[in-house]
């Protein structure tokens, strides 16, 4: 039985897809059979971030409509044989997703995989609802910025009241907070909410803090999940987050500005 993990946020553009791609790769690199599903029907992106856009034949909606078998639609990653991608359809809209259909596909996937990661679309409409409905774990992605924190809070409320687990009165979805696009320098200058500020408001266990990093843009340009860029801060931060998800206790790195030398400090402002 797979664990189903939703990567969600409420607000758009906070780094869900970046996170889903790196998390999936991170789990698969550790030998877990992992699949990542793009729930953003009509605005698919995950295939680009994973670098498999040239291999899409069938998509999630085809599988839901039983126009294709799951195994025809799953794309196997070329870098990691335990990782599969189920792309979204670009020519349909979110109405093509049904609760029963999604449930059926997730059930089938549960038999083959250890982890199934659902990359949620933004918003709190149908697509986002279905992405979280069947989840066992939720990774709530937020930026240290007011509207994103507020939307994350809204999403946390939805997770605890509208999910299948909530409806059946089962143990609630396990929630984790991932703070992305964190800029320690701006936090130090008092221009950006700090990790502690956000934790105080959202009160969720912290899975990790991903620094703002040019490496993320470079990685998505090349279709490589940033976790594979081992030299980058963001890549290392995602590795730590995966390790924490799997139960390791690691200190937070990258939440303080990198210190320049003394000269740099005097003249760099």
């Amino acid at each position, binding site marked *: 039985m797979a664990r189903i993990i939703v990567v969600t946020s409420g607000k758009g553009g906070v780094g869900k897809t970046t996170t889903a791609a790196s998390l999936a790769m991170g789990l698969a690199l550790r030998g877990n059979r992992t699949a990542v599903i793009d729930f953003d029907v*009509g*605005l*698919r992106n995950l295939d680009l971030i994973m670098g498999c*856009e*040239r*291999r*899409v*034949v069938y998509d999630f909606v*085809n599988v839901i*409509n*039983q*126009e*294709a078998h799951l195994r025809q639609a799953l794309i196997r990653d070329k870098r990691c044989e335990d990782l599969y991608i189920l792309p979204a359809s*670009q*020519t349909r809209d979110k109405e*093509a997703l*049904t609760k*029963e259909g999604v449930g059926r596909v997730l059930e089938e996937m549960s038999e083959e995989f250890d982890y199934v990661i659902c990359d949620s679309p933004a918003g709190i409409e149908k697509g986002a609802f279905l992405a979280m409905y069947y989840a066992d774990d939720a990774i709530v992605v937020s930026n240290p910025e007011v509207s994103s924190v507020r939307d994350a809070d809204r999403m946390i409320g939805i997770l605890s009241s509208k999910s299948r687990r909530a409806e059946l009165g089962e143990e609630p979805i396990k929630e984790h907070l991932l703070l992305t696009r964190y800029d320690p320098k701006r936090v130090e200058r008092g221009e950006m909410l700090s990790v502690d500020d956000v934790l105080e408001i959202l009160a969720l266990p912290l899975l990790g803090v991903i620094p703002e990093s040019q490496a993320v843009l470079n990685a998505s340009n090349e279709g490589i999940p940033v976790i594979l860029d081992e030299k980058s801060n963001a890549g290392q931060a995602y590795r730590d987050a995966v390790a924490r998800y799997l139960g390791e206790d690691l200190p937070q790195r990258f939440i303080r500005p990198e210190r320049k030398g003394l000269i740099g400090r005097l003249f760099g402002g």
Partner: protein
Amino acid sequence: MPIVRLRSTDMMTVAAQLRRSVERAPEFFRRAPVVIDVSALPDEAEINLAYLLGQLQQMGMIPVALRGGGPALRELAAAQRLALLADAPVPETRVTETSSPPPPPSPPPPSKAMLVTQPVRSGQRIYARGSDLVVLAAVGYGAEIMADGHIHVYGTLRGRALAGVHGDKGCRIFCRDLQAELVSIAGHYRISEDLDEAVRGRTVQVYMRDTALIIEAF
């Protein structure tokens, strides 16, 4: 003859799925006789036949026969004056983008090609039913163009193009600048990654030779 193959007894879901298929190709289903096939379900499955018949008729189809089903259901179907077919499979026409059903019984009357003069953008989908498709502009990434006949694209083809979607292997795709995500003739396809570098960005035609999909630069 289209076959509605039931895999679930939940008629609401079935009807919703059907409606989506019909929306995709409304003309194809208009006044089409259909066979209801329940042979995939266990004999004792409870099926609300009256509801299904009503839904099919509402969508413009004419249910004519039942295949499979237990004695109770077959009796009900007979009362509704449906023909009862044996369990043995009959040739079927499936309505998915890439399947290859047999050609229609009589050749359709010649029809004019569908002409598209505006760019086809990501997320858009154009289907020339029963005819050729001529696109004068570009077809973007994430766009999909389909035709029962040939496809001509005079702009750059970056999206997907599927010709002969009802199984006519004689159909071809012609395009001025091939950068497609996918090209397909009668269900045989080639994805972007498998495109030969020699044809990428070139003026090409795509056609079937026996069972092989050929992409040839002019």
